[in-house]
């Protein structure tokens, strides 16, 4: 929507670029794209102030389909490039789109440091537990036993958990959602955008071609209700339509599920979510089906000073000649007069 001015209110469609979307039919990325376009519209975001920075991967094609500014960079480096964009132009709203390979394999170091520094970005990691673009090799998030062209007998590497990694790296905002659950995803995207500092969002994304239904254990029509727990700050940690909840097992220092009404368990026994408690966030992040439900929503949100938003506007405006002249003349100087010249 390249018009010379940006109308006050824009519709989701106004955030769609003129480029034909080229993901495989049925790819979870389509749903995320739609959710993002609707979210920006509802947030009243301005396309000229919004930038999407991505690495390389199917997921990283994302910026081409947004009618905002976009930078499809190189594999794994989006967090570093986005850090430069944000530091040089803090007023921009910068979104990083990456994948489990882009963000946690080759890009793991930049992910660690962008979170540690708490640069004010939204970082969306599309986790399909596979290298999609390169035709389906297992990734650092693939579970043990994943059969792929590079693991014909099944992968043997212990996968990393994106949210646990983010917490270990010092992230101050960690959330999780699912590609096709538009309402929930949009809510998560909005809280991420509202958070000042690095907001890390893991989105479970189905790769229909190379890793179809890998999340079925908790996204399946039948499983979903029993296997998804939505965390809301200040609300009890309930799931399964409120029938079940989480309780702290003090001696084990672990979480356990309880059924309300059964052997005297009441709402009072159920843990209440505290988005500022990192220990709770870690415990929620570690839950895995079928034993425990998958924790979705904002697991952790504890703002801290952000990086790169310079208080002094000095660095924000080009230097004046006087300032530079002054700097060059600090310290010992001396004057040579024509007298001291020799023919």
């Amino acid at each position, binding site marked *: 929507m*390249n018009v010379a001015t940006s109308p006050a209110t824009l519709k989701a469609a106004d955030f769609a670029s003129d480029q034909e979307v080229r993901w495989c039919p049925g790819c979870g990325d389509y749903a995320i794209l739609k959710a993002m376009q609707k979210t920006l519209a509802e947030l009243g975001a301005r396309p000229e102030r919004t930038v999407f920075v991505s690495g390389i991967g199917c997921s990283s094609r994302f910026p081409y389909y947004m009618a905002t500014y976009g930078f499809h960079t190189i594999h794994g480096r989006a967090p*570093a490039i986005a850090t430069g964009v944000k530091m040089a132009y803090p007023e921009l709203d910068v979104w990083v789109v990456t994948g489990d390979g882009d963000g946690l394999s080759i890009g793991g170091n930049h992910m660690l440091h962008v979170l540690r520094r708490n640069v004010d970005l939204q970082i969306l990691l599309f986790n399909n537990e596979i290298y999609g673009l390169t035709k389906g090799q297992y990734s650092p998030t693939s579970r043990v036993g994943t059969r792929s062209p590079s693991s014909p007998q099944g992968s043997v590497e212990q996968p990393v958990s994106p949210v646990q990694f983010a917490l270990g790296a010092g992230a101050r905002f960690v959330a999780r959602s699912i590609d096709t659950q538009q309402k929930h995803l949009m809510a998560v995207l909005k809280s991420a955008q509202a958070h000042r500092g690095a907001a890390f969002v893991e989105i479970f994304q189905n790769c229909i071609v190379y890793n179809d239904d890998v999340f079925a254990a908790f996204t399946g029509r039948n499983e979903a209700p029993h296997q998804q727990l939505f965390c809301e700050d200040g609300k009890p940690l309930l799931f399964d339509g409120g029938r079940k909840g989480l309780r702290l097992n003090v001696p084990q220092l672990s979480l356990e599920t309880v059924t309300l009404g059964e052997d005297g368990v009441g709402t009072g026994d159920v843990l209440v979510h505290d988005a500022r408690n990192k220990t709770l966030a870690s415990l929620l992040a570690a839950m895995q089906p079928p034993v425990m439900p998958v924790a979705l929503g904002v697991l952790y949100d504890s703002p801290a000073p952000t990086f*790169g938003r310079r208080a002094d506007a*000095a*660095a924000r405006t080009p230097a*004046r000649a006087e300032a530079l002249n002054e700097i060059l003349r600090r310290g010992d100087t001396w004057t*040579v007069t024509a007298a001291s010249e*020799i023919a």
Partner: protein
Amino acid sequence: MNTFSTQTATPPEHVSGRTQLESVVVRFAGDSGDGIQVLGAKFAAATALSGNDLATFPDFPAEIRAPAGTTYGVSAFQINFGGRVIKTAGDAPDVLVAMNPAALKVELPNLRSGGQLLVDAGSFSERTLRKAGYAANPLVDGTLDAYRRIEIDISAMTLEAVKSFGLSQKDALRCKNMWTLGLVYWMYDRERDATVVWLRRRFAKQPDVAEANVAALNAGHAYGETAELSGDLVGSVLPPAPIAPGLYRTVTGSEALAWGLMAGAHLAGLRLFFSSYPITPASPILHILTANRDAGVETLQAEDEIAAVCAAIGGSYAGAIGVTSSSGPGIALKAEAIGLAVATELPLVIVDTQRAGPSTGMPTKTEQSDLNLAMFGRHGESPVAVLGARSPSDCFDVAVEAVRLATRYMTPVMVLSDGYIANAAQPWNIPDIAKLRPFPVRFAEAGGGGSAGGGFLPYARDPETGARPWAPPGKAGLEHRIGGIEKGADFGHISYDPGNHQRMVDERAGKIAGIAEDIPLQRPELGDDHGALAVVGWGSTYGPINRAVDVLRERGLDVAHIHLRHLNPVPANLGALLAAYGCVLVAEMNSGQLAGLLRSRYLLPAEGLSKITGQPFKIEEIQRAVLERLGESA
């Protein structure tokens, strides 16, 4: 010629008063802990103030703080100063100041035979001699007979001079360097005032330490004036050098480069975004720019070199001039990302302060072996502009030129400096920034040049420069997407079209080649635009080549010196110019990388004069090579 350069070891008859010298090379050497670099820097400052021209060469040990008294812990500082324009830190020192046995052991071989030796006899003990690897005491076993030496128990003198301040033995001995400085000041008739001021500022928090150092400085000076000394020690006055009038300061290559980047950004009307990861010898640029974050500069100490260059690219994308800096190992790591800047055609300056390789190599030693890396070190067809800085002060002008080319042509520009000029200092006629020619950047405007029927064309090229429009985020109507995948001309959408790829490759190459029309024609630094032999160089070999050619021409030889600043593209007339010499000798601190480029480009039998020892060329090495080529005897 001066009394120091006599080839005999027998002292000349005593002359009362001071002799006139044209130039002197003094080398200070001691333990890392002895404060040699401060001693050298202060002497350089005072020398500059006296009106002499000068060049310095700090020679650090590899270890941070090697155990005291070890040979690998020796730190040295060499200065060449005099009454003529000084181009190098000099070959063999005329005077060696050795603060301990290890320093003597390491540095003596460099001293001219017949040269003058000043040693702290107080530092010579059974233990320190063993540490230095001396079987016998060189002060007594005749090792030094070929030199004119003065032995003073500087340690004792210093302790004596500062005892009233009640410092610990350790702190008291820390003043040795100031006592020595005082003596050397007297030898060359220098003013102490500036140093005293500096000491009191430096140790503002410890007044007694400040005063102790001042006392030591004065005591050393007094010693020179009063003590009974052999005439050899009697110093010498050097007339002021023929220097253009103006306001001066001493500047290191790192300082000049950092300030040049700031000046370049100012002239382009941009903010400077500098992102780097520490590495020897490139780190000082990061330190200096970080200290100036209040002058249009934003800096990031990135987690690694890849992040550093990527953040710089992000900075350029967002409308600042992105700059990154490193040395060989780090520059190699940036290769892939530089390719992204080539493909997306964003301005970017990459500073490579070269050091001895391969791999970790010798981090504190200098070399010019990254030229090929700068030219070819990326996958695919990814040409970039390449510049080389010839001296500490030249780093300023080269940095400004780098920003000009990067922004005018929307391209990465590689700047090659090296460990030698980065640390070396030189007097510098401070420019007035307000008087420099600006080259303001014009960002793309909605519906402006790069547009077609409302739609913005991020790859519509400027007919003159071939550059694409620069459209940082923030402007409505210019929203667009770029990336490292091949892009269709004009609209910049992803394109796999064969013809389009050929076109884009050609246009990117043509854009860089076209810079040749925008830079000065090549002129010889010395000599005529034709002749028997031209010594061609680039970067920090400027000093030794220029001095060598100067001397040879004084001897009447038809030799010229050609020095390249623009290495890619080279000036349009270079081929024709080089063809006008009987012999082209390319002196480089590498295996002949520029020579190879010139041979390939001009099918010209350029010969390489190669030196890969981690040390700069000696003037005399270049002279000898030229004389050989010309069949003359040295």
